[in-house]
């Protein structure tokens, strides 16, 4: 049985789900949704980013496909208030719907400020704002490049102020100073000026001014663009930023070499005042001439003074001349004096050289000789006397002990035929000739034929074998 009230067509789940999906996508194919980013889960490994948009009363899933994520001007961040542009779609598998985001922009000033801070931190970390990168502005540029809108008050103000101070060659690089293309155009202008060759057809500026009048944070947003900051930091030509009013800050101000408070201020910074310079050069020129004239004058004065103080040549010569005369006069006298002096010295020496001195020496020597010989004579006599006394003493002793004294007492000495004394009877052969000495003379004899009988030899007194004669006493001296 069928329910009469249920004559409506039946759908399968898929049919209804896909029907719903079509309706949603048709109805909400292009929507802008404002909400806060919640549950941001970075780029997934697939490269897609998933999060939710929420407000006080609702929450909607959101996805940013990989290809879109890379092109977003603002990187989605947790808690950021954004306006998302995209389409709604459903996910039939699980009865869910979501927004597929094509573009994302911060909603309101707070969000922009947060973004600005983040970008400033990131570029600052790269060193693009380092004070060490800053270049000095040229003192007197010949060509000033201005990147700004070619129409409007800003360029007019700059040109007026330049004309007032120092008329220079100005090149304006026209750009949009607001809107989507602003950032890229300004960056291209800075890079374009830098790309101009030195001495080329278009003169290369010596300094660049990037200028724009005041405006809201959104109006000035192009000057916060990363490409602008990088172009300003990379500029070889010194760059002055003059964007907005004095209280407005943009990132190009941080990357520029100098920040001017206003476009007019930038014009004042890049050129000096010509009138003042001309006065200064004129003044220097006068001083130059004056100083060199004075230098010559001073020397002339000194020359005159010196010339006056210079003595006459004759005066200079007078004194030496006088000295010369004196010396010349003295010369012969001096010669004589010198000779005399030597003669006198010679005489002194020759006076001392006489035979008397020789004779005196001789007499002294003779006297010394006689003294010495006298002393010698006495000494010799004494010596002789002493020897004589000793001889006498010895002689008397000798006389007392020699055999002559014995002989005189009646003894006789027998000698053999050789004249040697014979002390033993046994020493004589029978018939040997002998000589007997008495005190008053000698007689020759012969031993009888019988062999002499020896008396006991022991009883014979011992006698020295040789007895020194008086003639052996030696010389007295």
């Amino acid at each position, binding site marked *: 049985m069928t329910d009469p009230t249920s004559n409506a067509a039946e759908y399968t789940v898929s049919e209804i789900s896909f029907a719903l999906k079509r309706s949603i996508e048709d109805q909400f194919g292009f929507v802008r949704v404002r909400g806060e980013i919640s549950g941001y889960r970075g780029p997934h490994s697939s490269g897609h980013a998933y999060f939710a948009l929420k407000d006080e009363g609702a929450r909607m899933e959101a996805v940013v496909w990989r290809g879109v994520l890379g092109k977003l001007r603002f990187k989605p961040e947790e808690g950021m208030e954004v306006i998302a542009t995209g389409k709604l779609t459903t996910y039939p598998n699980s009865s869910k719907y979501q927004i597929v985001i094509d573009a994302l922009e911060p909603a309101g000033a707070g969000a922009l400020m947060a973004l600005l801070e983040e970008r400033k931190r990131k570029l600052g970390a790269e060193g693009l704002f380092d004070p060490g990168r800053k270049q000095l502005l040229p003192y007197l540029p010949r060509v000033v490049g201005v990147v700004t809108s*070619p129409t409007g008050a800003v360029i007019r103000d700059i*040109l007026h102020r330049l004309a007032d101070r120092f008329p220079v*060659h100005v090149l304006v690089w026209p750009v949009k100073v607001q809107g989507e293309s602003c950032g890229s155009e300004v960056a291209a202008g800075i890079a374009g000026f830098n790309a101009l060759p030195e001495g080329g*057809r278009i003169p290369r500026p010596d300094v660049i001014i990037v200028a724009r009048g005041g405006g809201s944070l959104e109006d000035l947003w192009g000057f916060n663009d990363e490409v602008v900051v990088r172009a300003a930091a990379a500029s070889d030509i010194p760059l002055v930023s003059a964007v907005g009013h004095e209280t407005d800050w943009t990132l190009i101000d941080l990357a520029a070499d100098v920040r001017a408070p206003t476009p007019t201020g930038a014009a004042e910074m890049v050129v000096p005042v*010509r009138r003042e310079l001309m006065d200064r050069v004129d003044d220097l020129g006068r001083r130059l001439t004056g100083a*060199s004239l004075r230098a010559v004058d001073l020397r002339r004065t000194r020359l005159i003074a010196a010339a006056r103080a210079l003595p006459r040549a004759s005066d200079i010569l007078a004194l030496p001349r006088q000295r010369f005369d004196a010396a010349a006069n003295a010369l012969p006298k001096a010669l004589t004096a010198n000779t005399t002096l030597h003669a006198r010295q010679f005489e002194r020496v020759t006076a001392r050289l006489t035979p008397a001195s020789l004779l005196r020496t001789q007499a002294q020597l003779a006297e010394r000789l006689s003294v010495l010989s006298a002393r010698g004579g006495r000494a010799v006599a004494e010596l002789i006397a002493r020897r004589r006394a000793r001889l006498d003493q010895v002689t008397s002793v000798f006389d007392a002990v020699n055999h002559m004294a014995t002989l005189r007492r009646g003894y006789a000495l027998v000698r053999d035929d050789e004249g040697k004394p014979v002390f033993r009877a046994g020493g004589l052969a029978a018939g040997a000739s002998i000589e007997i000495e008495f005190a008053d003379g000698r007689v020759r004899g012969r031993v009888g034929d019988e062999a002499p009988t020896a008396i006991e030899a022991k009883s014979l007194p011992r006698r020295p074998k040789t007895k020194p004669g008086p003639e052996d006493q030696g010389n007295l001296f």
Partner: protein
Amino acid sequence: MTTATDVSALSFEQALKELEGIVARLEQGSVPLEESISIYERGDALRKHCDGLLKAAEAKVEKIRIAGDGSAAGVEPLDRE
């Protein structure tokens, strides 16, 4: 001395600085006479150079014509309203 440097090649600031230096030396009177003449001549050339740079300044305002690739294609007078 930087006499070797061609005066005309100097920037205004360089020339002015050198000119000031020369004037100061001459005013001190410490420069030998021969040198004082040569540096006077140099100073005079520097003064003329500075003067020339200042007088040659002219207000010329042009606008860059941008080529298709974004580079500078040429210049044209700036249309000042």
